[in-house]
């Protein structure tokens, strides 16, 4: 239905030709189109509402009212505001501090945590670090086996977790493995869980407490709909997230979850997953994501 916000805005303003000055009502029409486009892209309902309210101020200002190309002007403002809301610039991983550095992957079931753990191990190894992969998912069938296989593919060591063990103990023991093997970074793969699962959320808090990770990364699926805000808020409240990895970005989802998560938590999106292979991890570009959310 909505192909392109540019076309829709052009349509909105076309009716005005020859009627002279733009009115606030015209702007309201245009912003209605912007709001619909955001909702179509899965931006959360409340986030979209607040965002449009914020843009309205700039839009009714001189920039658009006096412009000869109001459609382009509205798009320019919307795009700028979107990308600045998403952080403006790409933000890297925090790898400073005394080694071993600990990176912890958290998120809903099936979001891509284990795969992303493998991708991060590859990235860190490429930077000259010595990562250790730590399977702390004793829940999903064959989760430990999955991470072991990824480690073997990469030539990165994998802590030998006991499938009957407790995830907190596993992580603590992995510190010993890391020092024995001379690893300077630990990547913790935790089991997928619902943000409303009290015991499992408490378990993540205990892991955080014991290992003090420098990065707690929420791994989130780019196809996520309106619920993204509830999930991100809950994980952030419990754990204090340091970053988000958005996965499955190479598909055709418009990715409104990126904006929703960033807007409600303020946590930066640091990386994006663009494929199933272990080299498919890229830095996040706020402006690109802004364009994509707008369908351009």
């Amino acid at each position, binding site marked *: 239905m909505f192909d392109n916000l540019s076309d829709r805005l052009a349509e909105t303003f076309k009716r005005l030709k020859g009627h002279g000055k733009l009115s606030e009502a015209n702007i309201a029409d245009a912003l209605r189109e912007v709001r619909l486009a955001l909702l179509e892209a899965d931006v959360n309902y409340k986030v979209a509402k607040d965002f449009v309210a914020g843009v309205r101020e700039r839009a009714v200002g001189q920039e658009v009212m006096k412009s000869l190309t109001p459609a382009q002007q509205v798009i320019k403002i919307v795009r700028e505001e979107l990308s600045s809301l998403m952080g403006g610039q790409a933000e890297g991983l925090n790898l400073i501090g005394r080694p071993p550095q600990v990176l912890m992957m958290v998120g*809903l079931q099936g979001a891509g945590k284990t795969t992303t753990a493998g991708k991060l191990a590859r990235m860190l190894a490429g930077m000259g670090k010595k990562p250790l992969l730590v399977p702390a998912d004793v829940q999903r069938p064959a989760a430990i086996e999955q991470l072991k296989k990824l480690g073997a593919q990469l030539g990165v060591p994998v802590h030998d977790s006991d499938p009957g063990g407790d995830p907190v103990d596993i992580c603590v023991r992995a510190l010993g493995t890391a020092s024995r093997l001379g690893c300077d970074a630990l990547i913790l793969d935790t089991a997928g869980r619902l943000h409303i699962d009290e015991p499992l959320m408490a378990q993540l808090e205990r892991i955080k407490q014991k290992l003090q990770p420098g990065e707690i990364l929420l791994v989130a699926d780019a196809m996520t*709909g309106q619920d993204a805000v509830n999930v991100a808020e809950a994980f952030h409240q419990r754990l204090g997230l340091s970053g988000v990895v958005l996965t499955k970005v190479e598909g*055709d989802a418009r990715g409104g979850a990126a904006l929703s998560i960033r807007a409600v938590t303020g946590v930066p999106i640091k990386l994006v997953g663009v494929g199933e292979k272990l080299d498919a991890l890229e830095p996040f570009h706020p402006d690109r994501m802004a364009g994509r959310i707008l369908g351009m």
Partner: protein
Amino acid sequence: AIGRKIDDEVLDELEEVLVTADLGVKTTAELIGGLRGKVRRKELADAEALKGALRAGIEEIFGRTAAPPAMTAKPHVIMVVGVNGVGKTTTIGKLASHLSAQGKKVMLGAADTFRAAAAEQLEIWAQRVGCPIVRQKEGADPSAVAYDTVEAAVGRGVDVAIIDTAGRLHTKVNLMDELRKIHRVIGKKMDGAPHEVILVLDATTGQNALNQAKMFNEAVQLTGLILTKLDGTAKGGVAVAIAGELKLPICYVGVGEHLDDLRPFDAREFAEAIFG
């Protein structure tokens, strides 16, 4: 007693409820728009009545979907497809358990030969259910595994064969071609098979699910959907748009990670949960 009067504020609130449940702006506008006449003619007494009518509207959309195919063939072959991480393998475990409990002999086929430890994962489910599994090495041709599975199912006289496939994004042409090939090869081994092609959808998915359904349907002619992860806070409202457009039935819903966390789909319950 007459409740809240239907005004713009009420309409806005209901719009928010529906969009927030992932029904999408188009379906939401159609549902609410379809009731404007009734509102104007004052056929709906108050906000509660309007809500009830919307609920009924959603149920009606599901009421117009096709029926899932009956299990008449032996073996009845089910192929399970979907994008990455939605819950295909887990759902197969639950479905196998459900069918076994009905006294059916079930066999699984591990045609996800790509993802690390995918076959090991399905194997654990087969053990939990107590049913046989056909698998090959990682990296093997998935069509060959599917073929072997149907062959073994025929040979052993099982009632239902369920074939797992690797997760794939619907936009990846080569992977969708691979899926078509699996479908074709199954049909070569047994006439009329696969009898069911089920798309697994994650209830947390937003509007992209509609594209998923359309493109998987185009590639392998879906017969139904299973909506997973309804035990979270997402409502899975995009399924309304899919039911409306593709007339595909929801066969089951997934409500957890355990063997018995599969439920029949109840349109009324689903519609009520959207407002609840």
